[in-house]
């Protein structure tokens, strides 16, 4: 209990003094996780919508695959990305291992299935509502998907936020592909793991609280932005 209070006060101290290291790793955390969320959303949201609207033979299989990928162990994803991008791997020449880019790639692999799956669920419900109308109005395939994405944007936002939440709190994969290098690839979660390993629980907790605060703030920010939009009653 004492540790926790101490962690809280240490967190406050770090934030108030604008600790340079804290700012740096927090910024990198946000940069990597938001980057991964944006990329994964660009892939996952239309994929989810497309799966909801189209009937094709392998559809069930793809959905089952997606759901299975949601549970991918991050450590294994990290390991695979590591092998692919290591010097002797197929993408070794790119020299991406131990860079934030590699971390983004690993996170994209981890959260795209989550975003696509949540989006698929939401769009499927909307499509059930809209189906007859959109067919009746002779909307083209592309128009249907665009309409569903737009009218379902609230739910899709939630899908993206679920992905972001997973990304910002993820440690296993980015530890492996990023290497937790100070001033290069250290982010909040890997810093917490490091401090914990050193027995610096106060510091680890402090970083943990900052992590929670960042995650909450991003969610609140997105929520606030979507509230101010016209027609926000949806």
């Amino acid at each position, binding site marked *: 209990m004492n540790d926790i209070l101490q962690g809280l006060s240490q967190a406050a101290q770090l934030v108030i003094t604008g600790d340079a290291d804290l700012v740096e790793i927090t910024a990198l955390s946000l940069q990597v996780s938001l980057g991964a969320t944006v990329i994964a959303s660009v892939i996952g949201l239309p994929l989810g919508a497309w799966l909801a609207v189209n009937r094709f033979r392998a559809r069930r299989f793809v959905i089952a695959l997606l759901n299975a990928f949601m549970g991918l162990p991050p450590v294994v994803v990290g390991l695979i990305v590591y092998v692919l991008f290591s010097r002797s791997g197929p993408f070794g020449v790119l020299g991406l291992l131990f860079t934030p880019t590699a971390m983004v790639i690993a996170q994209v692999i981890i959260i795209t299935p989550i975003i696509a799956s949540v989006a698929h669920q939401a769009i499927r419900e*909307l499509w059930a*509502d*809209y189906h*007859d*109308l959109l*067919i*009746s*109005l*002779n*909307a083209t395939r592309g*128009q249907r998907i665009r*309409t569903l994405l737009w*009218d*379902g944007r609230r739910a899709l936002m939630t899908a993206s936020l679920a992905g972001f939440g997973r990304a910002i709190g993820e440690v296993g994969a980015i530890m492996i592909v990023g290497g937790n290098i100070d001033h290069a690839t250290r982010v909040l979660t890997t810093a917490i793991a490091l401090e914990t390993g050193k027995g610096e629980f106060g510091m680890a907790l402090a970083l943990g609280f900052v992590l929670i605060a960042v995650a909450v703030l991003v969610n609140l920010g997105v929520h606030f932005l979507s509230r101010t939009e016209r*027609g926000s*009653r*949806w």
Partner: protein
Amino acid sequence: MVSSILPLKIEAVTVRRGGRQILGPIDWVLDGQGLTILMGPNGSGKTTFLRVMHGLERVGRGQIAWNAAAGDVRARQAFVFQTPIMMRRSVLDSIAYPLLLDGVARQKAMTEAEALAAQMGLGGLLNQPAQAISGGEKQKLALARALIRAPDVLFLDEPCANLDGRATKEIERILTEVRAGGTRIVMSTHDIGQARRLADDILFLHHGRLIETGPKAAFFEAPKTPEATAHLNGDLIP
């Protein structure tokens, strides 16, 4: 003048659902002018028949053929569903939506939608979420959305089911105007008074089959089948 999408020829069409034949076999031709009213008891197949004509139902046997020379026939029909489908958009955006699909410029679409909304008595609700307005208002919205493309053929499935007397009159006035404008209308209703007021001719469905078709006067004055007679008298159908 583009050629009409009519006639619509329906030949020996049947629909099976859940191991049961729920419609047909039906032979009918939709052509000419005017307003056709589809009557029949609950479950007789009115909704199914309307949906078949609009191409929303998978049919078993039989043929449904629009005048193919007219090009894209779906785009020139409109359908008002028995249960209005409301989009997660404002009333104004919902009415303008079909125009936006057609690639009409946003500003122009909005202006047209606003004018039509006002005409339909929805002028005060433009910025309300479509899903939050009353049942009757939803039906008016659905009608406005169907009319905004000025369709050649308009299908309506009990469009006045939830409307009060005044709103019903209002819709009937609009439908009369639309009909006079040359739109071919087919609508179902349980309201016999409405059928008398609006119909040029009547289709009577029973157990999925068209057992009577013909001009309004003949149908109301001297129905040929005991089923139609009973229906008009509000009796249980034999």
